[in-house]
């Protein structure tokens, strides 16, 4: 049984990926808090309605080599996982970043707990 075929599992996996990518962006903001000229960036929010309607809506160019334009997103950006990154243009506020950090960690915790509950539900259904 492929769990990713079930929409809620696919969504949760996508959400975990997004939260991980966001944590990476926050880590970069915090590490560069004292770098002159560095401006805060954040990920664009994940749109779940769009996720539900279809996983991939944009057309991709066919490529034969990873160096080609339009190569898969994993080659383009590994740290942000292909998620869109936006520069806010403002200097790093550590307090704000700490707030985002704990928010992201809590969301991650929530999503993994939800994942566990869903697995337990399926296990109950198949009588384990």
């Amino acid at each position: 049984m492929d769990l990713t075929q079930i929409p809620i599992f696919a969504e949760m996996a996508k959400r975990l990926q997004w939260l991980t990518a966001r944590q990476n962006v926050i880590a970069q903001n915090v590490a560069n808090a004292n770098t002159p000229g560095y401006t805060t960036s954040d990920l664009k929010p994940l749109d779940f309605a769009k996720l539900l309607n279809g996983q991939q809506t944009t057309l991709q160019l066919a490529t034969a080599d990873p160096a080609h334009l339009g190569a898969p997103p994993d080659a383009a950006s590994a740290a942000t996982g292909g998620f869109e990154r936006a520069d806010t243009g403002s200097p790093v506020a550590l307090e704000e970043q700490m707030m985002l950090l704990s928010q992201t960690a809590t969301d991650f915790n929530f999503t993994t707990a939800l994942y566990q509950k869903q697995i337990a539900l399926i296990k109950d259904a198949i009588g384990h």
Partner: protein
Amino acid sequence: MDLNVAMQVAFSGLGAQGERLKVISENLANADSTSQTPGGTPYQRKLITFRSVFDRSIDATTVQAGNVLNVGGNFERRYDPTNPGASSDGYVQLPNVNPLVELMDMKDAQQTYQANLNVIDAAKAMISHTLDLMRS
């Protein structure tokens, strides 16, 4: 793409802030270091610089401590003819280190260091929650 990237970036921040603290402690330790030769310049305050470095192996912007600059000028003068560093008119130049400024800088370095540690803690907690999925 995984949480190790967040940890590596945070570790680079820890390293940079550690370097900063080293420079601050040099300044504070030498706050009274006058010249050994008559009329010479005393200890000059050091200033650390940071620059962001794009690490291709993890595809993320890490931070690195750059050059340490000597900030010259603005030396205070004190009349002390017996001091070995005094010039012919009896004045000795004092280092341009202001302990208050250094202490504030130290506080800032401490806070940023703590913030980087928080990132590592959060990433660790997220990894352990992911591992918990296997136990259910």
